[in-house]
């Protein structure tokens, strides 16, 4: 990343406050600009255009999977990275069917997540 460019925005849709704030800090420390949302509804209302969105599956109201579905139906090209603490069978398959670029089980390996986002940034700037 070139420091003279404005930082790339990464959206985080996560209802757990401490996890959301902490992920925001990590993104900022790596050099991204975090945009934090506590629900899928809040994300849709703001309709941001981030580099990518890190979306939790279990959210109050609309789930992360539903959000993915909705964005895809609306033709939005934002890459979605899905995270979940829920390891019931079939969640990963459903996230992948809806076209997520990457899937992480919680607790998430921060380095791996940052590497994934950095590779998306790399792709988008080239």
């Amino acid at each position, binding site marked *: 990343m070139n420091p003279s460019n404005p930082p790339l925005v990464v959206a985080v849709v996560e209802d*757990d406050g*401490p*996890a959301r*704030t*902490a*992920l925001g*800090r*990590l993104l*900022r*420390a*790596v050099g991204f600009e975090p945009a934090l949302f506590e629900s899928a509804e809040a994300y849709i209302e703001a309709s941001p255009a981030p580099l990518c969105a890190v979306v939790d599956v279990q959210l109050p109201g609309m789930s992360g999977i539903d959000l993915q579905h909705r964005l895809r139906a609306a033709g939005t090209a934002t890459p979605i990275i899905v*995270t979940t*603490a*829920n*390891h*019931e*069978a*079939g969640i990963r398959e459903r996230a992948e069917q809806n076209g997520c670029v990457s899937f992480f*089980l*919680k*607790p*998430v*390996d*921060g*380095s791996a997540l940052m590497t994934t986002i950095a590779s998306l940034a790399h792709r988008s700037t080239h």
Partner: protein
Amino acid sequence: MGSRSYAALAFWLVLCAASSDAQPVVRQVLVLQSVDRGNLPIDRFTGNFRVDLGEGLETPVNITQISVATTGLVGAPDQAVVDYIRSSFADRAKPDLIVTIGGPASLFARKYRQRLFPDTPLLLASVDQRYLGDAPLGENESAVAVVNDFSRLVEDILQVLPETTQVFVVTGSGVIGQFWHRELENDFKRFHNRLTFIWSEDLTFQELLRRSASLPKHTAIVYLAFSTDAQGGAYADERVLADLQATANAPLFAGQSAFLGTGVVGGSMLSIDDLSRSTAEVAIQILNGAPASTVQVPPQLPGPPTFDWRELRRWNIPESRLPSGSIVRYRGPSLWREYRGTAITAAGALVIQSLLIVALLHQRRERQRAELESRRNLALAADASRRATMSALTSSIAHELSQPLSAMMYNAHALQLMVTANGAYSDTLGEILADIQTQGLRATQIIDRHRTMLRSRQLDKTPIDIHAVITESLALVAQDMAARQIETTVNLSAKRCVISGDQVLLQQVLVNLLMNAMDAVAETPPARRHITIRTDVRADDVEISVSDTGTGLPAELDGTLFTPFVTTKSHGLGIGLTIARTIIAAHGGTIDAYNNPNGGATFTVTLRNSAVTHALH
């Protein structure tokens, strides 16, 4: 002041001195246990020891009991246990005596002796001589050791069942199991041309039951312990022995008196009662001031062979074969005494009498057979239920922990990047951050390991008729339903519905839903207590619903109904529906609940039709 006042003052002073002398000193005893509750000999020993100690001491005694090893495969690190023990004495009197119970606790106490009150006398109790090894006892240490002679037990077996060719050894999988497998393999070498030994520490409990139900002829089972199975599940001797006795096709033998009466035939047994008594005596001497190293007792050996009369009969072992000096316990009434009344009444008619006896015996055998059969089914169901409970709990704990753990790891990572960027990095700071990350990773791995364990839990899937499962579940609760004056309507689809599933687990879900419905209508007037069970077999799936006319689902439970530990019942744990959901999810189905428009609630279970077609092919 007159002489009388002086006398009064002196008297008062004497009184004061006397009362301060009488001020009882509470003795602090720290008991370090090898395993959590459930190990029968250790539980019996500990119970006795506490009573004997309390009775034998002049002063009151305060016992702090801590388990140093875990039941299961993954325990807390030793250092954490040491810290915990130290912290529990941080702001009160140090222990006057440390007593370890069992082998693993003795190893632990000796290993961490320097950090665990090195000036306090240490008594290693109920420990097999083999655990003490060659390391001599320290200055301030004493031991009440035992010699478990399992070779002698095997000789007893050969004497009462001379045709025995195989011995199935049950040790469980944890630290105790591993230790004894090693030791006994060596001890039993002398039987190599006569007996084959089968070891069992790589079996799950379910597998153990299955194996023991189909052992080859002329096999005997030697039971040592079973606190942990190969998957890390925790078990208690009493339940394991009851289930084993019901399912095993070979007789059980054990070498400790605590096991007599729980279904074992018998053998030369170490008396746990004697052991706890002599341990209490040693502990009392040390607490009364005797230096530990001067209070030494020889190791205790097994006592005379002791047998359970009922088991001797069950396995057709004549008493003439018992080793000389054997003791027979639990002797029941003889046939004659049992049926004397009958015999006298029928004295005039010998033919009738014999017919009667034959009939009674036949009935008795039938009843025994039926009891055995139902115990076997219950044992299997109970095990499945324990496993499901464990799965659901671990799964929900892993789930709850992963969220805060994520936050911690992100924070540590961010902090590391920030201090590096600001040039505020120091070696200590680096170490601290690296430690936080390493420990976070370790916690993550523990969660992952549990996930793998859950995934590896195989469902015992067979083609099952959903309607038959419903009918069986209803039969299980029928009596209770009638007693509670609840009417049922069963409205099953005319289409037959066979799916591939785990019968025991699905039955558990249905019974759970029925019991919940029964609890829900408890407040409803008897005339309106009604439960409806219906099925809807559709092209894609089958829906099973259980509706009641009860109080309905409270609004505050909305969204948390299937979360563990959420309950409306004063007597419930709140895990029934969590388990139900885990089971249904494992079958690829869903479970939902809603309130009925005209009162009461309905629970629906939907199982995918892919399972249906799959089963039919």
